[in-house]
């Protein structure tokens, strides 16, 4: 029997808190899960620094990847006798679903911003490079790895296949919303996925939703909206993320100035030099990052030491709301005052905006800007979701951006020059301390 058709002698299952069970019968999937590159995902948290706010959020990219695979497996099962669906694409879809996040590194959003990396690039590199994953895929048939890489990059010829893994209502989002809600413990983020799967219909180049299932999709859109504000953009999590990214900036700056670290930061050197090989990328996981942060708490450099101590011990920055239109002058004044009291504003006075986050809302957008969610109407026509749903239309039109100013309040209150500290705090909090919330 060809490797691509080979089945395990009996079905294997992974117990899963979100989908109850993840079912595996294909030998190829089983072999992919066993590769070191996929196992590495166990050591990378799905939500980065969110566990600092929601202590349950310790789940990994490994959990999520299995979840996305399971959802796609169920969708394909529902699709198998429907028009437009080509069941020969089944294994390709399953592999792409399983491997779609393979290139994520530790705290990948901050690492990408600071070191100008791109996890999608590394996903491609792992799938196409000299790796165990590539060997498994190429055993299916020569060129299969390229097909999987193309589906994940959204450049594969069959758009229906691509839209299962990546669209505005895809398996990726359906898994992470439910999984993140489960592990953070919040009550938002839940929706009736079984219903959505039942009303999904394959058409020529996308997955659409039978119009009778609109309310289940409304619930999904609402979950996405609430999870964004309540979990993903939680200001305390953002504070940890701000500190994390400043640690990376500081370490990089010190390296560029030939600073002598007490222990050579071997695992970071290629990141500092912006010359990261695949092998070096794969070696850096969260345990390694935490190891260095632990060590850097004893570094001579005051800023690096302080930021690491804050990150490791959850001594976070405080924040106030910030409006760049009305408060630019205040910001410039603060910048100057921070310098005067010896607190480096480049590291300790940080504006964080909603656009700095990698999560998104549902966006109907403009024609051909980005593919929206389409409802399949009884007469066979397609209608964009927000044109039919008042709830979605109303969420789509809401103001949904935000800017916050982060700073170490404890440093200010401990300043010797308390008159300057008072001046700074008055600018930050206002005289009456009422318009801002910490």
């Amino acid at each position, binding site marked *: 029997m060809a490797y691509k058709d080979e089945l395990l002698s009996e079905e294997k299952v992974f117990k899963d808190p979100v989908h109850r069970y993840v079912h595996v019968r294909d030998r190829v999937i089983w072999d992919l899960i066993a590769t070191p590159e996929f196992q590495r995902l166990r050591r990378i948290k799905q939500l980065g620094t969110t566990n600092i706010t929601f202590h349950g959020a310790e789940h990994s990219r490994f959990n999520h990847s299995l979840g996305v695979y399971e959802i796609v497996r169920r969708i394909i099962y529902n699709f198998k006798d429907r028009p437009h669906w080509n069941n020969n694409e089944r294994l390709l879809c399953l592999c792409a679903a399983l491997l779609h996040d393979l290139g994520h590194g530790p705290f990948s959003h901050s690492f990408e911003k600071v070191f100008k990396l791109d996890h999608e690039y590394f996903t491609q590199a792992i799938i196409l490079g000299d790796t165990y994953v590539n060997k498994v895929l190429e055993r299916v048939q020569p060129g299969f790895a390229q097909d999987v890489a193309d589906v994940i990059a*959204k450049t594969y010829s069959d758009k229906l296949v691509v839209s299962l893994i990546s669209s505005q209502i895809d398996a990726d989002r359906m898994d992470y919303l439910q999984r993140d809600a489960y592990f953070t413990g919040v009550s938002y983020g839940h929706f009736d996925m079984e219903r959505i799967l039942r009303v999904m219909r394959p058409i020529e180049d996308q997955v659409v939703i039978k119009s009778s299932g609109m309310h289940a999709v409304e619930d999904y859109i609402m979950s996405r909206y609430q999870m964004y504000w309540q979990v993903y953009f939680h200001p305390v999590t953002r504070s940890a993320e701000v500190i994390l990214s400043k640690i990376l900036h500081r370490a990089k700056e010190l390296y560029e100035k030939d600073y002598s670290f007490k222990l050579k930061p071997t695992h970071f050197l290629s990141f500092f030099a912006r010359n990261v090989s695949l092998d070096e990328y794969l070696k850096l996981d969260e345990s390694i990052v935490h190891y260095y942060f632990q060590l850097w708490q004893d570094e001579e450099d005051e800023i690096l030491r302080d930021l690491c101590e804050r990150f490791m011990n959850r001594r976070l920055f405080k924040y106030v709301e910030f409006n760049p239109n009305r408060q630019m002058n205040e910001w410039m004044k603060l910048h100057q005052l921070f310098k005067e009291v010896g607190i480096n504003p480049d590291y300790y006075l940080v504006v964080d905006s909603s656009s700095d986050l990698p999560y998104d809302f549902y966006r109907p957008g403009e*024609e051909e800007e980005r593919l929206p969610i389409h409802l399949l109407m009884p007469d066979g026509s397609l209608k964009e979701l927000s044109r039919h749903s008042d709830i979605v239309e109303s969420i789509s039109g809401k103001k949904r951006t935000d800017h916050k100013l982060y700073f170490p309040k404890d440093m200010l209150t401990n300043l010797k020059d308390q008159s300057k500290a008072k001046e700074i705090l008055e600018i930050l909090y206002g005289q009456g301390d009422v318009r801002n919330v910490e």
Partner: protein
Amino acid sequence: MLNNHAKLMQFFLNAKQVTGRKKLQKMIYILQSLGVPFEEKYQFHFYGPYSEELSLRVEELCNLGFLDEEKENKSSYFQYHYKVTGDGEEFLHQFALDMPDYGKQIEMMQNKSARFLELVSTMLYFHELSKEEVEQKIHVVKPKQKYTEDEIKEAWEFIDSLSVGLAN
């Protein structure tokens, strides 16, 4: 701080008015491909390179009152028009940006349709492939658009002419 916002404001000020979000997406991507240091992260989507980060940043600029967004109902879809407000200009004055002069490139792109810019940005997205491979890829990823040989030829010429005269 907010440097990426300021870079976009400078773009809108140069462009005077931008009509269409799709066109905006492709213009920024094309400029980025030419080496203009916009930092927005792009991914390939159904209609070519698209940046959610850009969409959200533009939304932030509108909410801050720096950009004026006008929504036009085109029966089956909406079209958006953008221009810089007085507050926006004031905001921009507070930044000293080190950007090349890409005024000519903006003008060239303004005169082209969103469909054409979709083709150009898609071709640039596959810059690591050979010319023949890029042309094959266009038909693989965009079969519905049915780009003609003439359009593809024009797009190559357009890309060549864009690269000329990007002043630093």
